[in-house]
């Protein structure tokens, strides 16, 4: 195991870098898209609501692998060249944003209606009330679920291995096929994944306890 660390250290660092990059990009964009989707559903328009629901239900009920493979294989067939990392990151963003939208929506709904009404009665517009009164409370409620989603996102980024995205798992396969030492290659990469996910997941546990 130590051998793998010393011999393939640089390769592992590269893998870690791609995994982190993919996770960060996905984290930022899926948070934005998810929040926007959740807010759009609050609009009075039935059509917008329906479109948001379709997006959310479609991406929540199709395997991530199918989404990523779709992007990876279909886009070059009809449009332009796309590399594995881009396809994987876009797919992961589309997938995760649907989950985040659902989490934030449930957060907004769990804030009492009186809060919104109270804010409105002080003269705030609807969006001001959302921005300064409802959303801060909603975010506080959903922090643990969001955190879990972020842990899932890091784990899901291993989907990049399917489409040659150079991430940790891809490097594990490469190392395993070079050394034939499958057990230790996967163990090493497993430890690296745990280093990313475990602290986050324990911190979320701690937050959950503190907030409740």
């Amino acid at each position, binding site marked *: 195991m130590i051998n793998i660390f010393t011999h393939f250290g640089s390769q592992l660092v590269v893998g870690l870098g791609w995994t982190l990059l993919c996770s960060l990009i996905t984290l930022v964009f899926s948070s934005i898209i998810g929040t926007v989707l959740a807010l759009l559903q609050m609009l009075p328009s039935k059509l917008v609501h329906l479109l948001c629901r379709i997006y959310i*239900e*479609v991406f*929540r*009920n*199709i*395997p*991530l*692998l*199918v989404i990523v*493979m*779709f992007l990876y*294989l*279909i886009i070059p*067939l*009809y449009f332009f060249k796309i590399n594995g990392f881009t396809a994987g990151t876009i797919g992961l963003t589309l997938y995760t944003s649907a989950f985040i939208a659902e989490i934030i929506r449930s957060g907004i709904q769990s804030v009492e209606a009186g809060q919104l009404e109270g804010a409105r009665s002080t003269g705030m517009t609807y969006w001001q009330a959302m921005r300064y009164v409802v959303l801060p409370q909603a975010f506080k409620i959903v922090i643990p679920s969001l955190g879990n989603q972020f*842990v899932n996102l890091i*784990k*899901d*980024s*291993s*989907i990049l*291995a*399917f489409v040659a995205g150079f991430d940790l*798992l891809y490097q*594990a*396969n490469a190392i*395993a096929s070079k050394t034939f*030492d*499958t*057990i230790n290659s*996967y*163990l090493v*990469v*497993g430890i690296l*994944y*745990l280093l990313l*996910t*475990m602290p986050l*997941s*324990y911190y979320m546990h701690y937050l959950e306890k503190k907030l409740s």
Partner: protein
Amino acid sequence: MQTWTNAFSWINIRFLLLGLKVTLFISLIVMVLSFIIGSLLGILRFAKIKYVSATVGFIVDIVRNLPLLLIIFFTYFGLPNFGFRPDVIPAAIIAMTVFESGMIAEIVRSGIQSVAPGQMEGACSTGMNFAQTMWHVVLPQAYKHIIPTLVSQLVSLIKDTSLATIIVVPEMTQQAQIVYGQNANFTLPMFVALALLYFVVCFTLSIVGNLVGKQLS
């Protein structure tokens, strides 16, 4: 248009449906196995037995925080080094059961914790021991709380079976790959069919889960 009608010929669709059968078969077995194992682990973790609970908790946390894909690789490519060489479907079932058990252990534990402590104390004070209290009083209430979560876990399990295509398990995604591998023109139609089939199965289940959840609460 011709491509699409050809792609959706009965032979291809039947081939996909055969894959769906494998997908559902694996999901069902994994769900049953991990429901049992996960419940046991969840109870053990909750029981606060010296050393045992902490160890179980630590293992569950490790499994939950690893990518499923890594566990599948490890099972199929790593275990043969220990002299254990499972076939593709058993390997997929083993790997996914390990992962799902961890997930379900956590769900069960949160379900048990959501049962009011008074229930447990009350049952104990009638002279029941820990196992009896769990079986007759706490678990029925806990499971009632977590049914919706368990259903959504089943949905994500069905979606996750697609990962088993990496070790060439003949489930739906793999079958689709075989079809468009023979004729690249079928790639888009096959993905549409694949997405549709997964969507129908998972969405129906989610709705059923929601309905059951509402009924129970």
